[in-house]
Structure formats: C-alpha cells, structure tokens
C-alpha cells in the first residue's frame, strides 16, 4: 500500500488548519473547516481501498470477489453528513453575526476576553 494518500491527507489537514488560524472572515473560516474535514475522507477511503476491488455490493457475485472495505465508506458518509450540518450551523451563526454584531471578522466579535 502506498503512503501517498496518508501524506495527502496530512497535507490537506495542515493547509486547512493554517487557513483557520489565519482566517479574518467567517465564510472563509467555514470553508477552511470543510476543507480540513475533507482530509478525513481521503484518509478513510484510502484505508479501505483494495487494489482491483469492486464496490462492496455482494449480490449476484461469486464468493471471494474482491471489494473495498464498506465500513470506512459508511464512516465517510457519516462524516460528510456531519460536515454539512456543521457548515450549515456555522453559516447560520455567521449570518446572525452580520445582522446583530455588524461584522464578519472573528477578531472584532469578541466580547468575552481574559
């Protein structure tokens, strides 16, 4: 198995974290968070990958047919659902921030400190 997918996942993760740390706009922040999350898809799918394996549907196929691992695929699907939920929630909060606090900059919206 190649190490390339792991390197790629780590790279996407770190780029996303860098974006979050440097973010000056809520929309940008949410996109960076989604980007970071996509690194987990790459990791999970590469873990379950089997060379020349088909889709994990075991109907009308002979016993012992190669297939990719369905467990991590299920986990990835769950992960995508979570990602959409969190993104939707954060965007809703961002709209409220624009409405009530009149700012989209995390640096300016900080009444609690110290």
């Amino acid at each position, binding site marked *: *198995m190649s190490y390339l997918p792991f390197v790629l*996942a780590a790279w996407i*993760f770190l780029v996303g*974290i860098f974006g*979050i*740390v*440097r*973010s000056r706009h*809520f929309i940008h*922040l949410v996109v960076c*968070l989604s980007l*970071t*999350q996509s*690194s*987990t898809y790459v*990791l*999970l799918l590469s*873990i379950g990958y089997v060379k020349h394996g088909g889709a994990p549907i075991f109907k009308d196929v002979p016993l012992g047919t190669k297939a990719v691992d369905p*467990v*991590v695929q*299920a*986990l990835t699907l*769950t*992960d995508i659902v*979570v990602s959409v*939920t*969190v993104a939707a*929630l*954060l965007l809703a*909060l*961002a709209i*409220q*921030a624009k409405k*009530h*606090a009149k700012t989209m900059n*995390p*640096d300016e*919206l*900080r*009444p*609690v*400190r*110290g």
Partner: protein
Amino acid sequence: MDVLVPLPVAIPLLTAAALTAFGYWCGRRLDDLIAIVATAATLVISLLLVFRSNDHDLVYWFGGWKPSNGVALGISFTVDPGVAAVATLVATLALAALVFSWRYFDEVGTLFPVLMLVFVGAMCGFALAGDLFNLFVWFELMSVVAYALTGYGVEHAGPLEGAINFAVTNSVGSFCILFGIGFLYARTGALNLAQIVAFTLLVGGFMTKAGAVPFHFWLSDAYAVAPVPVCILLAGVMSDLGLHAIARIYWTVFSGTLSAGDIRPVLIGFGLVTAIVGGFMCFLQRDLKRMLAFATISNIGAVLVGIALLTRSGLASSIVYLNTNGLLRGAAFVAVGILVRRFKSGDELDLRGRGRRAPIAGVVFAAAGLGLALLPPFGPFLANALVVDSADTLGYGWVPPVLALAAVLSAGTILRAAARIFGGLGEAKDPLFSHEPEESQEEPTDTRRVSQPLLWIPAAALALVGLGLVFVPELAGHALRNAGRLVDRSAHAREVLHGVPPSPAPAPSYSPSAAAYAYSVASTLGALAFAAFGLYRRRLPIVLRRAAARVADRPVAGLKALHSGVVGDYVAWLTAGIAVLGGVVAVVVR
C-alpha cells in the same frame, strides 16, 4: 440481551422526533411537560441499568449482529455500572435543567425541549457505546446539538462568538479523533508508530471535548454565554464524557501495547497543569458563569489525574469524582440561574449583598463550593482519597498536594463569590478581575413570574444528591470492583465478544487513609482562607502587596491575554497541544 439497554437513547430521541412532528399542535406547556416526562423515564431506566449490570456487563448488539468466533461485525452498546452511572448523571442533570427552564424562553416554541432531548439521547449513546464507530457517531451528534444550544440566544454577540469558537475548535478535535480511529482500523505496517499516532490523536481529540489545557480555550467562552439550563448539562457532564472516553479507550484498546508506566507521567502532567491553570483563571473572573466554567476546567484536571494514574483505584476515583462533581457544578449553575432570573445579572461585584434576598440559592452555591473544596466525608473527598492512596503506592506522592492546591483555588473562588453575593462581604471593586462584558449576555426572555419551587427544587435536589451520593453503602467498594472489570483487558474482551461472564468477586472494602483526611481538611481550610484573601486582599500590608504584584502581575496579564477570544488562536493552541502530546508520547514509549 437486555431490552432496557437501548432505551436511554431511544426514549429521548423518539420523543424529540415526535415533538418535532406534532409539538406545534400541543402547545408550549404540554411540550415542556412531555420532555420532562421522557427525561424522567430515561433517568429511571439508567438507574435500573446500574443495578442490573452489577454482576456482569450488559451487551446489546444492534440488529442482533452478534460476534461470531470472537470477531465482532456489528456495533454494540456495552453497559457496566460505571457507564450506566454516567447515563444516570446525564438524565438527572437534564431533568433539573428542564424543570428549571420552565417559562425561561419565550419564542420559538418546541425548539428548546427538542434540542435538549436530542442532547440527552446523544450523551447517553456516547456513554453506552461499545465500539469506536458507534462512539464517533454519538460524539458528533452530541457536539452538533451542543453548538446549537450554546448559540441559542443568537440576538447577542456573546453567544454567537461562544458558539462559533466551540463549533470550530471541537470540529477540529473531532477530525483528530476520526484520524485516530482510521489509524487504529488500518493497522498499517509500522504498528508501533501507528499506535502512537492513533493514541495521540484520540486522546488529543477527546481532551479538546473535555477542555484540558491547552485545548480548553473554547470552553470558557462557550459556557459563559450559553443559557443557564444548557450550562447545567455542558459543565455538569459533557466535559467529563471526553475523559470517560479516554479511560475506556486506553483500557480496552491501548493497555496491551502502551504500558501504563510510560503513559502515566504524560497524562498526569496534562491533568495537573489543567487543574492549576483552571483554578487560577477561575480566581480572576467576576462573571459567575465564566467563573464556574474555569472551575469546571480545574475539576476536569483532577478527574484526568485520577484516570492518568492508570490503576484500578484511579479509574474508580474518576467515576466517583465525575458524578459528584458534575452534580455539584450543576447545582451551582442552577443557583446562578436563580440569580440571573431574579436580579437580571450574573456578575459577582454587581450582585454584592443583593443575594441576601435569595437565601436558598446562597446555601446551594456555598454547599457546592464546600463540596468541591473536598470537605470530608462528601463525594469529591472520597474520590480524592482514592487518588491519594493510589498515588502514594505508585511513588507519585507529590501529586495529591498539587491537586489540593487546585481545589483551594477553584473552590475558594466559588466560596468568595458566595460570601460576597449572599453575605455582602468584601469590597465593591477589584481591579484584578477581568472586565465585565459590555452587554448583559443572557436573560430569560419569558418575563412572567414563575413559581419559586420550580427554581429552587432543582438546585437543592442536585446539591443534596451530589453531597449525599457518598452515603450509598459501599460506594467506593463497588466503584473499585467495577473499575477492576474494565482494567482486566482480556477478561473484558472475553466477556463482550464471547459472552464469558467475569468471575464473581465481592466488592472490596475501602476506608480512606489518614493522609487523605489530612489533605482534604487542609484544602477545605485553604479554600476558606483563599476566599477571605479574595475578599479582603487589599487590606494586606502594602509591602506584601507590592511584592505580590511584582511576582504575579506579568503572569496574570499573560494568562489573561492568552484567552483572547479569537478562534484562530485557539486552533493554533490545539495543534500545538497535539504536537506536544505526540512528541512526548513518542519519546517516553521509545
């Protein structure tokens, strides 16, 4: 297979679904009542599970997918008394929160009870989950609902910021957990390295949820702005669930490959730093909710130290600690809620002396403070005694004094606030405190009068149960026996996967040592003295104060500046924390 096992999750979730569908036609009061009844049912069933699982674990395989030849294909709930006790804690706090929140919110009808029910179901599911996939799904559900509940008061800037910081930081933490699960599942070639990476990411991710230093920054922001009924659940149990997961994962997954002697100092280090930093920041607060948030962090550190001892006693202590502290912190939050409802303020200096008109809140608040100060013979004392005795035998005799100091800092601050608000003691101004937020962040939106017992009964009940739990016969013995079952990894695996019941063992008897009493008496007296110091600090001789200012001013300013409220900084600290954790683990395991 026990039919009761899935019910603590199923009842709240199904009720939430039904309320979402039909709640609109039921009317507000009926919705609230249905939510309360469902939570009470969850409480009863969780309590039944504590007793039913006393002799052997209850394992529930979803869809009847039982393991064949020791290989588990399905997902499961695995219940032992410790796990069921956590579910009971969730339901108890939720019940108190729902009763307290009667007529708290005016707008948006059924949303609040529905969210609370989903939160309860998700936390119970997280506590009962028997495998990592299950655990992750419940973790995510619990997190997302918690973000939504924190940001419930969206018309203010405070809850918005708190919820955003909470959501972003915890999402990054959950990615780490997912990476960790992936590495464990993959079992790639370099086994040892993969284990270290997986351990680091899982522990770091769950520490983010728990709020251990340096992963804690989001916690004080979120808990300070969430509505009081939500805080009761967040501070009472959600933080501790992260640590609960760390303990279970270490003993079921890693105890075979990463030896306890290697990992112990690392986790103890994180726990002690958390306990002290939390206690110190607690002292600097004047906003009561933010003060209790930092007290939560300090408590989390103490629970983490119990788990970090990686012994049977340590694990048993963490279960006792988590339950009693959770109840006491919940009670303190209800008391703060009473103040907020009555005086429209949650600020220590602002409320000075005004609390005399709410004596029951005062008694509850002070009782919670004394309990957290390890006053013997109450619950936190018992947990601390288990830690003291275990640490002594391991050669970590220097750990208990540090823990006692942390209890002095956090509980002393709570007692200080109690004396100032309910006794009118102390000075009216203190320049050391963090500034008061500009706008008042949260008030009940439904301004009609609510009958007083609905407010003080939850507070008094939580405080009484929290303090009285220790008088359950042989509590320590049962906790020790139950911890022993989880610690024996191969027997635990045999039981869950093959259905071999554990060999029946009587609950060992336990009585705290003299050293444990000495530490607890010292920390109680210390907390009282520290409270007096907080109140009358400026009456000390000028020489002493100047010397103290020279030593403490810069660290205090630095610590305050670190809690900047900017989410980017928090994520940077999280990344640094994980890097440090991973580096240290890699060094000690080598």
